[in-house]
């Protein structure tokens, strides 16, 4: 295609004789561009390939256990009995783990959402530019702390705090894990929430102010409704972080498989369970396969959370 174009330029008038004007581009540039395009396409497709490969692998490892004689899917989902290494009577009930994951997530969100959104509102609406920069840097630092370090803090600092303040015997428990998870998700909630508030047009603020709102009314009646999609996204990303977190909860929640009856009970989450036991389970054993199945369960949960989030946000948008 390029050669045709270059050819046609040869019939230019004599005014510019010596230099042949090129309309087409040199071959190497075209090849280079095509190569680049290919590269980009490959990286795009590779994402799909990787996801499929992971699915394939996880399912391949997990599915055979469904046909094993001492496994029942009903027990897996609804039993609280998790005795994967019992010699006489193995039981693979993950219900307690599921409850552990859910309670830790909910409690952590109960702590993190008010703090996170409060901080986002403070940063976006109340503080001066200097303070804003400082706070944002600090929050980024908070987000940069590795989860092992958080687990470590839970195990030592928070655990000690909980036992001295409340007098309970064991400091690593549901409350501890939730506090740690809350601290880990607050930075996400703050930064996404702040973005959402920043995106609210100034004209809305002026409209509210000119109607005589107090600062507080402006936030409640103008900013929150205007930014609700973004704020919801912030919260859901926080939930995502909390559900998927492994290392910190493994260290901070006490790791006992039971349905908690209070915030001072120890729990174990689905993620922590996989992380703790996969190394010990013999490859290909039913225990090993059940752990993979737990992974699938986890995937289903996060998928449902994301999908609901999507629907909620879209529902709001349609309104």
């Amino acid at each position, binding site marked *: 295609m390029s050669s045709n174009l270059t050819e046609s330029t040869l019939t230019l008038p004599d005014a510019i004789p010596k230099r042949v004007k090129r309309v087409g581009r040199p071959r190497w540039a075209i090849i280079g561009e095509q190569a680049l395009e290919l590269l980009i396409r490959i990286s795009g497709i590779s994402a799909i390939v990787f996801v499929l490969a992971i699915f394939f692998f996880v399912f391949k490892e997990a599915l055979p256990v469904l046909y094993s004689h001492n496994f029942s899917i009903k027990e897996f989902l609804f039993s609280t009995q998790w005795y994967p290494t019992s010699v006489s009577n193995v039981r693979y009930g993950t219900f307690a783990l599921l409850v552990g994951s859910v309670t830790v997530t909910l409690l952590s969100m109960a702590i993190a959402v008010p703090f996170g959104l409060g901080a986002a509102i403070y940063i976006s609406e109340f503080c001066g530019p200097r303070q804003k920069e400082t706070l944002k840097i600090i929050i980024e630092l908070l987000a940069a702390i590795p989860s092992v370090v958080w687990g470590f803090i839970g195990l030592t600092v928070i655990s000690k705090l909980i036992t001295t303040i409340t007098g309970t015997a064991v400091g690593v428990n549901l409350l501890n894990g939730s506090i740690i998870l809350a601290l880990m998700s607050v930075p996400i909630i703050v930064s996404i929430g702040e973005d959402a508030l920043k995106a609210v047009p100034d004209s809305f603020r002026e409209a509210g102010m000119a109607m005589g*709102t107090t600062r507080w009314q402006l936030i409640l009646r103008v900013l929150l409704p205007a930014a609700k999609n973004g704020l919801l996204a912030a919260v859901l990303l926080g939930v995502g972080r909390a559900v998927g977190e492994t290392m910190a909860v493994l260290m901070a929640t006490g790791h006992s498989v039971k349905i908690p009856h209070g915030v001072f009970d120890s729990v174990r989450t689905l993620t922590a369970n996989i992380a703790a036991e996969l190394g010990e389970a013999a490859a290909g054993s039913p225990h090993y396969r059940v752990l993979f199945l737990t992974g699938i369960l986890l995937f289903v949960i996060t998928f449902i959370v994301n999908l609901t989030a999507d629907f909620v946000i879209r529902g709001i948008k349609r309104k």
Partner: protein
Amino acid sequence: MDTNVTTDSLEYGVLTKDLNLWYGKFQALKSVSMSVKKGQITSLIGPSGCGKTTLLRCFNRINERFSYVRTAGEIVILGKNIYDSDVSLIELRKNVGMVFQRPNPLPISVYENVVFGLKVHTPRKQLKKSVLDETVEKSLNEVGLWDDLKDRLKTKATSLQLEQQQKLCIARLLPLKPDIILMDEPCSALDVEGTHAIEELMFTLRNKYTIIIVTHNMSQARRASDECVFMLLGELIEHSRTEELFINPKNPKTAEYIEGRYG
């Protein structure tokens, strides 16, 4: 320029005395003294950047949301200097409503937009559904939107046509029974028909409210205002009856402007 500032100030909707305003180091208003008559439409005209918006935004003190704004002088509204330390910004803004250049209804329903002011200013217990409903009908009727929107009160206000949005922005001021309505180029985002409709609306609101309108559009000032204020570079140059100012301007600068010699 204004000699009878001391006459009964209640005859005037807005009085400014020696008003100065600085954005940081830049002085945007220079010793502005003017008196706006109650129940009339007063237009502010002048070339771009002369401080019309700035002056208007002083009257409800919304300029002060920027920390670098500094003002000196007096603005008397309803017999009270609004810069006095005991003035409540909330009460002031309840009495002085503002319509912005870009229609800015809030991203909530039409209904909620109209009752927004009431909800903000009355304790929740005193708000009856019937009162709110009545208010919505009355306010929308007053701006001529009721027939168009009575079946769409639940739609999001930001999805209306611009003209409807701007009318709604006027309607939402009315339940608070303001004395003064400030309008900053309320028609600049509208087409000819929308402009016409808003002007009609201004006429119906005159007498009941003191209206101050900023406009770039000379013929609009001429058509729609009783009095006219010409500003230049932050100063008030001339203030007189509209016919007078356009037919027989006293200041040569005014004459030059209305003949179209500035931008």
